[in-house]
């Protein structure tokens, strides 16, 4: 009985393996080994920062489509861009390190709450009822962006989100998730930034926030490089032009800002805005 069962199982096993071996040859699918190699080089976070559905999609596109650049992966940074460029035979662009920035200073501005929100703990849900803060453009602070971040680079403090600059890879998930659109991707070397996303002007802003931007346009007029503009109701800074112009202007925009909401960033001048809020809050 033992011999019989052994022989039957052996025979069956051999038969199945033979069928599968033959099938693997006949039904083999041609796969470009380069796609596999590029996939190996990518960090595999599937964050979507490259604009593709995942690392596999970007690997396939980078290999097969000549128009797709090799430096789209922001999570991997310059090393990954170089590796992908080498594998796909494309030129790696200059990947300027970027970081996510929260354009809101509601804690500093003592923005009051319109109502006590009790519901699904999500910014998108709170927004459906109308922002719970007096300022409709503020950081709602329920953490949708924090949960969307694949790199654990955001944390909540004092009712607002804070970005850990070391961990942030500028994948853009938080920008896409925020229902108020207060997150912006800026270069790490950005010199100045406006900490406000309010599209209101003048009294409408001062009524609700002590710190907000009133759209007085002083910065727009003062900038010698003409890189500060009012677009869509908020101040937008062309950081590439700003950095290219150099420190000659001594950040006159920040000097002249009557609300001190357009501030210098980085080690060059005062404490970083996030830290300033920590002191103020």
């Amino acid at each position, binding site marked *: 009985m033992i011999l*019989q*069962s052994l022989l*039957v*199982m052996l025979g*069956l*096993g051999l038969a*199945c*393996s033979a*069928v*599968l071996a033959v*099938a*693997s040859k006949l*039904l*083999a*699918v041609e796969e470009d080994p380069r796609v596999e190699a590029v996939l190996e080089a990518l960090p595999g976070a599937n964050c979507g920062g490259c604009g593709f559905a995942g690392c596999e999609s970007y690997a396939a596109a980078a290999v097969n489509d000549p128009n797709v650049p090799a430096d789209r992966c922001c999570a991997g940074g310059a090393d990954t861009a170089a590796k992908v460029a080498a594998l796909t035979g494309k030129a790696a662009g200059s990947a300027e390190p970027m970081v996510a920035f929260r354009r809101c200073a509601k804690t500093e501005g003592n923005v009051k709450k319109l109502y006590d929100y009790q519901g*699904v*703990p*999500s910014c998108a*849900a709170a927004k459906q009822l109308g922002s719970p803060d007096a300022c409709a453009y503020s950081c709602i602070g329920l953490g949708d962006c924090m949960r969307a971040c694949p790199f654990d680079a955001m944390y909540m403090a004092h009712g607002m989100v804070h970005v850990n600059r070391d961990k942030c890879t500028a994948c853009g998930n938080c920008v896409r998730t925020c229902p108020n659109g207060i997150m912006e991707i800026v270069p790490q070397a950005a010199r100045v930034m406006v900490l406000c996303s309010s599209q209101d002007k003048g009294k409408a802003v001062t009524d609700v926030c002590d710190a907000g931007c009133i759209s007085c346009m002083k910065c727009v007029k003062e900038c010698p490089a003409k890189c500060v503009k009012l677009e869509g109701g908020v101040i937008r800074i062309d950081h590439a032009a700003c950095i290219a112009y150099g420190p000659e202007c001594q950040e006159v925009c920040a000097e002249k800002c009557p609300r001190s909401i357009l501030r210098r960033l980085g080690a060059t001048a005062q404490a970083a805005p996030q830290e300033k809020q920590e002191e103020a809050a």
Partner: protein
Amino acid sequence: MDYFLMLISAIFVNNILLAQYLGNCPFLGCSKEKGVAFGMGAAVIFVAVMATAFTWIMQKWVLEPYGLGYLQTLVFILVIAALVQFVEMFLKKMVPPLYKALGIFLPLITTNCAVLGIAILVQRKEFGLGMSLYYSFVASLGFTLALMLMAGIRERLIIARLPKSLQGTSIGLVMAGLMSLTFFAFKGMIG
């Protein structure tokens, strides 16, 4: 009439997942979103019907004539695993869209006890080939129904306020138990 009774029996009264407790791994693993749950259910239907066909043939043409009935479990597992591997290769080559939709679930079903369970159940009930195929189809439909129900519940649980210790699989297991209790209401409906 017999077919209709079997349909009701397999989907509600003796649900392969909630009453017979077969195939719990994908029940908790693939039930977080309705889309994924449906894909998994469809893959199980596909594999279960094919597996039942092949194993029925193995039983009737190889195992019984040669008195090898005691090897049923081993042979069935071997045949099902080889079959699923073959199907995966076949789909990848011949029907890429179907492979993209179901492909990732196929390795998960290779040794799913629901598939093996259905294959062995039809032998116990001594069905003919046609009846076996029909039974495997409706039993897997019951599996898909249970999976879809669980996915619908879990989608809502994501935004509910749950204690940290209950979030995720824990509440999923509690829900599974409650669902199983609910389906007990059907017991005794059909003999």
